[in-house]
């Protein structure tokens, strides 16, 4: 392994490759900040440029774009409640409230340090465990994914405090309903499309997020502009831009980061999950382990609640390289595009990649460390300036947010219908917001619902219609038991509090 590290370092530390990491990280950060444009599109458009490069160099560049985008996506989540990439949706749950309290700089700094730690720790896990991790990738079957999605749904508890339970549940149902639009996941039948071709591919996740978060937030601000209680508090620019994290907050992060990085990395390794699921699960799990006092702060600007998903999404990003490099299995659209590029370079992924192309394997891992440092250097000094976006008068900022939401959705599909659909959903979401319905449960149900249904039905197909799959495998049973434990524990505690 030491030999491998040395090979990796000598490859990764050449002038050309360091330059590529920098370009990739910079480009990725920009792509990540822009809502709509994701790393997959960016990498796909980049392939013709990378052709003629050394395979290692090409992959280092693409990997840089990938984790750069996940790093940069948190900025728009925190400042504008407009997640730049799907993996940073959970970041806005606590990041945006924190920024609204005048602590935008601090929120961005926490996100940057958490991303850095998540990325670096998972690169270490990769370094030590990559060969055995391919087994983890293949250990999950459809029933296990189903159980995992159920476990993920328990995170909804995080948004249902103080009499909000019924409203949260209603939003869950709405999310599940939206997820069922479009072609059925297993058969050729379309559902709830009203014979409209634009709906046959379903509603895109990014569209729902942009509508219910960015757009409806902007619309709510417009509607409430004369409301004295929500009048914008004038915060001083120095406070807004301050990136100081105090000792108490640091102590919290020391606990959150290690556990979230492990969850994020392991979920990232699974081909059927990915960074978005990882960040939601880490968020939900974090809420289950923190103190009751901190629990109350979730959704209102909790440090743990911001740090957990930010650590996990970057960790998942590194984790997703495991099935791609060691098995040749792409777990997401982005890794599928990278796998295509890898094959184009004439490199055969698989367990033998360590032997046949050690320089590629190790230099990618090594470039991840370098990339994380570069991203931190790139992001931290800019935070005080970026945070000032919030000091822009609302009558300039709101139109800009609306503009970015619309163009962001349009450049994703080039389909006008998506714009109308987004506006429609945003208007409904704005109404719901005015009556205090929480949006995160809708998003969570939307993203988990589709996968849950698909895996449930596939499990039933595989077991010839029998429900035995729920306890047939130890892994499935364990995940489901954990879920039940969490739910029972919550009910017990609520009950005890009441008495």
């Amino acid at each position: 392994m030491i030999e491998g590290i040395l090979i990796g370092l000598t490859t990764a530390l050449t002038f050309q490759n360091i330059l590529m990491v920098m370009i990739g990280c910079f480009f990725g950060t920009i792509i990540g900040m822009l809502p709509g444009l994701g790393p997959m599109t960016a990498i796909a458009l980049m392939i013709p440029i990378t052709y003629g490069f050394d395979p290692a160099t090409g992959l280092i560049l693409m990997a840089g774009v990938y984790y750069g985008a996940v790093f940069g996506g948190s900025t728009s989540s925190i400042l504008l409640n407009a997640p730049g990439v799907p993996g940073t949706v959970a970041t806005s749950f606590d990041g945006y409230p924190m920024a609204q309290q005048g602590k935008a700089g601090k929120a961005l700094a926490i996100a940057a340090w958490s991303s850095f730690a998540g990325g670096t720790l998972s690169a270490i896990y990769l370094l030590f465990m990559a060969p055995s991790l391919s087994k983890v990738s293949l250990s999950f079957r459809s029933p296990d994914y189903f159980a995992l999605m159920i476990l993920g749904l328990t995170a909804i508890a995080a948004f249902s405090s103080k009499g909000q339970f019924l409203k949260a549940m209603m939003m869950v149902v709405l999310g599940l309903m939206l997820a069922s639009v479009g072609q059925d996941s297993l058969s050729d039948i379309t559902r709830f499309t009203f014979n409209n071709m634009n709906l046959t591919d379903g509603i895109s996740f990014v569209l729902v997020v942009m509508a219910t978060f960015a757009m409806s937030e902007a619309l709510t601000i417009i509607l409430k502009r004369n409301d004295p209680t929500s009048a914008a508090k004038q915060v001083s620019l120095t406070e807004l831009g301050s990136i100081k994290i105090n000792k108490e907050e640091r102590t919290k992060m020391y606990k959150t980061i290690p556990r979230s990085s492990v969850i994020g990395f392991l979920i990232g390794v699974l081909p059927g999950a990915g960074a978005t699921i990882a960040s939601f699960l880490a968020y939900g799990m974090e809420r289950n382990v923190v103190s009751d006092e901190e629990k109350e702060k979730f959704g209102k600007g909790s440090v743990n609640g911001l740090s957990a998903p930010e650590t996990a999404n970057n960790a998942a990003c590194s984790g997703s390289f495991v099935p791609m490099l060691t098995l040749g299995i792409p777990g997401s659209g982005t890794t599928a595009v990278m796998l295509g590029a890898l094959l184009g370079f004439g490199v055969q992924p698989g367990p033998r990649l360590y032997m046949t192309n050690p320089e590629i394997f190790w230099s990618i891992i090594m470039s991840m460390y370098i990339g994380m440092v570069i991203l931190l250097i790139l992001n931290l000094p800019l935070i005080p300036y970026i945070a000032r976006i919030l000091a822009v008068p609302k009558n300039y900022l709101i139109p800009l947010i609306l503009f970015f939401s619309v163009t962001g959705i349009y450049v994703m599909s080039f389909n006008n219908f998506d714009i109308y659909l987004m506006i429609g959903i945003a208007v409904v979401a704005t109404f719901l917001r005015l009556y205090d319905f929480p949006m995160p449960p809708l998003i969570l149900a939307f993203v988990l619902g589709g996968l849950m249904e698909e895996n449930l039905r596939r499990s039933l197909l595989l077991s010839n219609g029998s429900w035995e799959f729920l306890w047939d495998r130890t892994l499935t049973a364990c995940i489901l038991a954990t879920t039940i434990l969490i739910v029972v524990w919550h009910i017990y505690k609520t009950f005890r509090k009441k008495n």
Partner: protein
Amino acid sequence: MKNLKKIVSVLFSAILLFSATTSSSVAIDKLHFVIGGGAGGGWDGTARGTGEALTKAGMLSSASFENMSGGGGGKALAYMINTKPANTVLVQSTPLVLRSITRHKGYVKGSGTLSYKDVVPIAGVIGDYGAIAVAKSSSFKNFKDVVNAYKKDPNSVKMAGGSVRGSMDHLIGALAFQAAGADPNAVQYIPYDAGGKALAGLLSGETQIISTGLGELMGARDQVRIIGITAPSRVSDAPDAPTLKEQGYDVQFVNWRGFFGPPGMSNADRAAIAKMLGDVQKTPEWETVRARNAWVNIYNPEGKFVSFLEKQTQEMTALMKKLGVI
């Protein structure tokens, strides 16, 4: 604020770049490619790769591209039929034949089903053969082993594929079982939402075989054993993969990718573009793009392309009826 301005200008130029269109001219020296899916997909790669080779080889002065997602490619197809744009071609593949057979009705003004007959087939350019594979550790060594196990107990063979029931992945496997004298509808097909996920399903052991495009399997060649491809003879990219034909199963299937013109395209234009697409395949510029994407050249122009599409439609209609998906 400064940052925002910068971002705005970057975004504007990106949009302009994406939506650049060409004006029509007399000789075909500019082509506009309409792509019914997003950047990074198979159609997108085919159109952009072909456009790149054509311009670099000097056959076109410029090529422009337009992504138009929606309805699994149906939106772009409807656009071609309804607006009849000049100097514009649409990239399509086998799913066009399948959608012509199934029920996507009522999306065009007037009556009729969206079909390849509503546009002008110019030429098929590349293709991907279907393949059936098992995990390296599997006891199945060839397709005959699979058929024998299936005949003994139909429940013992579950077949993974990267798309829904009735999709191309399903049909590839069903064709093979049909050729072996089995009831294709009794074969258990387990759908996944992407080729990579189906592959993970196979390797995790929840299914025994996978039926998909050969291209999907190239990345995982160290993990799987390809036990039958739907090509007429072995292919150079995977010389150790036997054909189904050589094992005595008469199955041939190719997932073609090709280009279509708007209805009413003149015969001269059609012939000129078809010739251009054929000639470019002899150039080193094309070879660069082809090798990068591991495409298989299958050039099939005009009339030949039409009769191929007709034959594929007949075969698939019969099979889909047996499977009960139409």
